[in-house]
């Protein structure tokens, strides 16, 4: 039974506590500061918030006293010499046939700490942070110091080792629209999955590159996007350039992975070796941002569908959650307790979470909904929250 719900919102961190069978919000923390992700480390109860200061740069904030006090941590930094190849959005006069010019390099600085991941129970102090512009950071001292994972940063698909010199290969990673807030178009890591069976086996998902896997603790990374599609590109099945919105796995069956993609819902039952599209557009299950996987049954997952992608809001003014129990062969829609008229909510990629039979999601309209029966009925926990960026049970 979850005891806490942590929200990252545009105006700070909001924590709901389970008290006497109900859920009660505390006064907002980090008041006025955008918080793009807030989460509790299940190994030691430390709370983490990723602050998205508009002026002062992204910072992690850590609380070791259950949210009573927070300590800002500024040590997630790209090392001197960290560079990447700039990729611009195509302009109307873009000529795909034109010869490619010399790559343009940019010095890297953290623009957003988009997600925080935790190592296994046998790795105390091991943390991961996924960032825009596309670097994965690792800490082994509970966040006091962080190191850039260089094999991923120096991946051949990003141009190779730019610490050492000029690019030795083409940059195949695109940017994420989520970076446009910074006036840039840079890639971002928003999903980090640590295999519960093997802490050296991880997946990360990158917008807009795809899914990558390491089986050697991050010393080498392989693309794992086969079967994913990007319908908006000339070659929808190209190996690189995908925009997975969020990727998660079933903890009890970690070879079962789920992905809400820009171009559909995708499912893999073979450890991301092959993805298959399991959308059902006629049922409204196609576009969206978050996905949640059941703890034990790899075939069961939930999505919060939205009207694709030019509108990005609830379909026909009615908010619903869809669940599959059979690996995406069929989907059931659940609307009980959710608004069915004049609802324009969108739930962002970290805005849905699961804990046992409980699910919870928050929208950018500031609404928060909780289900205690595997998504079949919902109760509203708040209508006047700031825009919600992340929801995580603690």
């Amino acid at each position, binding site marked *: 039974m979850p005891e806490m719900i942590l929200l990252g919102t545009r105006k700070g961190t909001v924590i709901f506590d389970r008290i006497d069978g109900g859920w009660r919000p505390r006064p907002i923390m980090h008041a006025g500061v955008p918080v793009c992700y807030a989460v509790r480390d299940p190994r030691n109860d430390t709370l983490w918030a990723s602050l998205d*200061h*508009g*002026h*002062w*740069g992204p*910072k992690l904030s850590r609380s070791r006293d259950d949210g009573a006090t927070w300590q*800002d941590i*500024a040590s997630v*930094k*790209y*090392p*001197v010499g*960290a560079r990447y190849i700039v990729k611009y959005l195509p302009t109307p006069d873009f000529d795909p046939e034109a010869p490619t010019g010399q790559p343009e390099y940019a*010095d*890297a*600085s*953290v623009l957003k700490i988009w997600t925080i991941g935790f190592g296994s129970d046998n790795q105390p102090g091991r943390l991961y942070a996924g960032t825009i512009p596309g670097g994965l950071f690792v800490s082994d001292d509970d966040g006091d110091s962080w190191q850039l994972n260089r094999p991923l940063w120096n991946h051949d698909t990003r141009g190779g080792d730019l610490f050492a010199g000029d690019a030795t290969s083409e940059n195949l990673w695109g940017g994420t629209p989520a970076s446009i807030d*910074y*006036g840039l178009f840079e890639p971002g890591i928003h999903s980090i999955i640590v295999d519960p069976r093997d802490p050296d086996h991880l997946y990360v998902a990158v917008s807009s590159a795809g899914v990558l896997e390491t089986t050697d603790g991050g010393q080498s990374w392989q693309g794992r996007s086969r079967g994913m599609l990007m319908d908006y590109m000339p070659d929808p099945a190209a190996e690189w350039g995908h925009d997975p919105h969020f990727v998660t796995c079933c903890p009890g069956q970690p070879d079962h992975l789920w992905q809400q993609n820009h171009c559909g819902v995708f499912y893999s039952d073979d450890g991301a070796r092959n993805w298959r599209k399991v959308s059902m557009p006629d049922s409204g299950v196609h576009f969206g941002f978050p996905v949640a996987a059941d703890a034990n049954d790899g075939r069961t997952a939930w999505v919060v569908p939205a009207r694709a992608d030019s509108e990005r809001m609830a379909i026909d003014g009615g908010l619903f959650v869809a669940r599959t129990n059979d690996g995406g062969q069929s989907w059931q829609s659940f609307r009980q307790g959710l608004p069915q008229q004049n609802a324009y909510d969108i739930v962002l990629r970290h805005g849905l979470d699961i804990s046992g039979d409980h699910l919870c999601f928050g929208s950018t309209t500031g609404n928060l909904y909780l289900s205690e029966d595997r998504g079949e009925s919902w109760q509203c926990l708040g209508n006047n929250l700031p825009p919600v960026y992340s929801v995580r049970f603690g």
Partner: protein
Amino acid sequence: MTTVEITPHLYRYFPQLKNRTIRAPAGSVAQILRAVDEIAPGFKDYLLDDQGRLRRHVHISINDTLVVDRKTLSDRVPDGGTLYIFQALSGG
């Protein structure tokens, strides 16, 4: 000596800078920010990005002139001068 005036928004993160006059020897902007960072550890991380450049929406002026070198912060603050640190606020 020079005087450093900072936006009150930074007092929230560095309360030790509140209600006091911040002084530093004349020198480059980089040297003066280092001096403030010694009083308030971590201060530079709020103004400068990972590569030591002034953050996008942060401005520094020497007296009434905005600094030109936002990358290496080499502009000099003369003896008796004041370095102002402020930010562009926007949005809702």
